[in-house]
């Protein structure tokens, strides 16, 4: 993280979103909206006083998955890059009531700027790498886990925050009562390998669930029960890690947990079928960790349309070929990195990201791109300026050139994919697809049907 913040060739645009992408491989124009932080990054000394003095201190922290609190002007976590705070305008007293301005009064650098506005940058790049990541499956969608009934039914990311030294308990694993749990259940495949949610295997959950078992055993005296269907530990050093966790006296129960219920005394009960014993089993515990699957980001459909990339049935972004082109997309010059393409763990993500960077570098270092000649061309003498083709083009490759009251359609050869939509639609037959001319296609059809019952007469043109 720090390396990225300091690299002389990397310009960080945080709190920023891509609004619009145009252009083509080698020359993309990208509009990026830099959202207003309401803190002047050039003046801010990152002293943290504003955050400390902000009277709004009880906002659930997104970074701590709602388990910790933050202020209205805040830095999400201590190692954030950059450490320039941001004002949450939906929670800040000043933005809500026009009163307060405590941070502004106290800031020694005069960096608070309530008037700051969003800024739009227009950038030109030769290649784009989409690395927009994943979301965690919302376990609330599966009613049998009764997630909302107890604060001690937590998900994988909440456990991470609980166990982290920068988290709400400074790394102590505690129940909502503030005491270490005596028994913990960890449930695999929540939102994965399940026809009611997602049919795919999310690949990372087995290993993180094993890691959670290890951390509970390491930090507390609690008994740990892992409810699993199969342990998928296929990675370098993974099976060895599984063996290690087994040796740490973790109870492995083979069977998907059927239900989590909250008992009258607030304790939790996990019901399952142990498929090895062939019997229903139950475990009374103080904490349940739901091993939630990785799912596509909620706005992945919109991101896909901004960058002109496809999605597979599971909603993750679609690679150009699963084996031969795993980081390319069907839009040349746009590459995929990491869990936006498929659930993957850290080692696989780093490898995939380096592969994307490799493809990107080979494009940038080549310095030029070859544009295929098999595109559509307009015969401007025949074009009647009706503009039918312009809206039909799926690649926005056609523009209208005005000339003395009239005009003509013109095709950008770098954007055109030669799909032929405009050729078929042009009422004046003014557009020709190179390498797919009517003459060539008819000749092929005539050759194919010659001497058959479907034989067609030779067509010229």
């Amino acid at each position, binding site marked *: 993280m720090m390396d990225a913040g300091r690299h002389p060739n990397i*310009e960080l645009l945080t709190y920023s979103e891509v609004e619009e992408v145009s252009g083509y491989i080698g020359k993309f124009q990208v509009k990026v909206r830099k959202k207003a932080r309401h803190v002047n990054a050039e003046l801010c000394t990152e002293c943290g006083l504003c955050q400390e003095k902000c009277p709004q201190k009880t906002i659930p922290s997104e970074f701590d998955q709602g388990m910790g609190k933050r202020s209205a002007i805040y830095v999400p976590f201590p190692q954030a890059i950059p450490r320039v705070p941001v004002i949450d305008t939906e929670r800040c007293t000043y933005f809500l009531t026009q009163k307060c301005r405590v941070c502004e009064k106290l800031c020694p650098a005069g960096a608070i700027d309530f008037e700051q506005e969003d800024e739009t940058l227009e950038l030109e790049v030769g290649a784009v790498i989409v690395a927009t990541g994943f979301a965690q499956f919302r376990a609330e969608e599966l009613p049998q886990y009764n997630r909302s009934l107890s604060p001690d039914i937590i998900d994988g990311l909440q456990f991470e925050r609980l166990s982290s030294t920068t988290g709400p308990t400074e790394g102590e694993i505690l129940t909502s009562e503030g005491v270490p749990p005596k028994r913990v259940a960890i449930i695999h495949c929540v939102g994965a390998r399940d026809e009611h949610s997602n049919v795919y295997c999310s690949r990372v959950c087995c290993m993180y669930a094993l890691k959670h078992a290890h951390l509970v055993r390491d930090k507390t005296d609690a008994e740990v029960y892992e409810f699993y269907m199969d342990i998928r530990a296929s990675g370098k050093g993974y099976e060895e890690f599984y063996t290690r966790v087994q040796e740490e006296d973790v109870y492995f129960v083979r069977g998907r947990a059927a239900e989590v219920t909250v008992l009258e005394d607030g304790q939790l009960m996990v019901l399952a079928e142990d498929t090895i014993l062939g019997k229903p089993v139950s475990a009374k515990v103080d904490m349940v960790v739901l091993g939630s699957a990785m799912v596509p980001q909620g706005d992945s459909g919109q991101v896909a349309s901004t960058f002109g990339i496809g999605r597979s049935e599971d909603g993750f972004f679609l690679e150009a070929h699963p084996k031969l082109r795993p980081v390319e997309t069907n839009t040349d010059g746009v590459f995929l990195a990491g869990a936006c393409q498929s659930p993957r763990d850290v080692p696989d993500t780093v490898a995939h990201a380096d592969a994307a*960077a490799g493809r990107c570098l080979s494009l940038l270092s080549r310095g030029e791109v070859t544009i295929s*000649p098999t595109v559509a061309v307009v015969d401007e003498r025949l074009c009647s300026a009706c503009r039918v083709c312009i809206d039909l083009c799926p690649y926005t490759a056609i523009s209208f050139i005005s000339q003395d009251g009239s005009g003509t359609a013109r095709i950008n050869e770098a954007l055109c994919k030669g799909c032929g939509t405009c050729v078929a639609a042009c009422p004046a037959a003014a557009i020709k697809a190179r390498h797919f001319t009517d003459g060539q296609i008819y000749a092929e059809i005539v*050759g194919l049907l010659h001497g058959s019952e479907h034989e067609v007469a030779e067509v010229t043109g």
Partner: protein
Amino acid sequence: MSEETPRIGVYVCDCGINIGAVVDVPAVVSFASGLPAVAVAREYKYVCSEPGQEMIRKDIKESGINRVVVASCTPRMHEPTFQNAVAEAGLNPYCLQMTNIREHASWISQDDKAATEKAKRLVRAAVARVALHEPLESRTEKVTPAAMVVGGGIAGIQAALTTADGGYKVYLVEREPTIGGHMAQLDKTFPTLDCST
């Protein structure tokens, strides 16, 4: 070149037994020889192999072949292979036509006669088409020497660092106030249990 008389070379591939065991390849070759403008028609075990490509290049150079039909597998696999092969012999790569007598004939039929008949039709269609092909030239465009990485989690950070280390400008765009993504939330990472930040 579109003005010159087409002299077509047809190369029918056995693809080992993939095509040859079903389609009567010698019959297709003999049929192709009789088609208009076909100057030469040959069978080869694997046309995509180096000797197979060399056979085509030799005919272009020595027999004045100016249009090429390869009847073999899907063009998705080997069209670039044969485009390069004809270009090496000085022929425009768009003077090539491939026709798929494997996925569209031998692999989809147990009826040898029907498969052979279809292969002949496909070859006749390709020959008729290639006679009308025109040489086309590709264009090149300059690449802006910069990249944008969208998303500042572990994937975006890694991709940005590797690209930036290559000497190119990288814009790393992140919608949250800080980079780090989910990775920054993780405590330890398996299997080595090292820190995530």
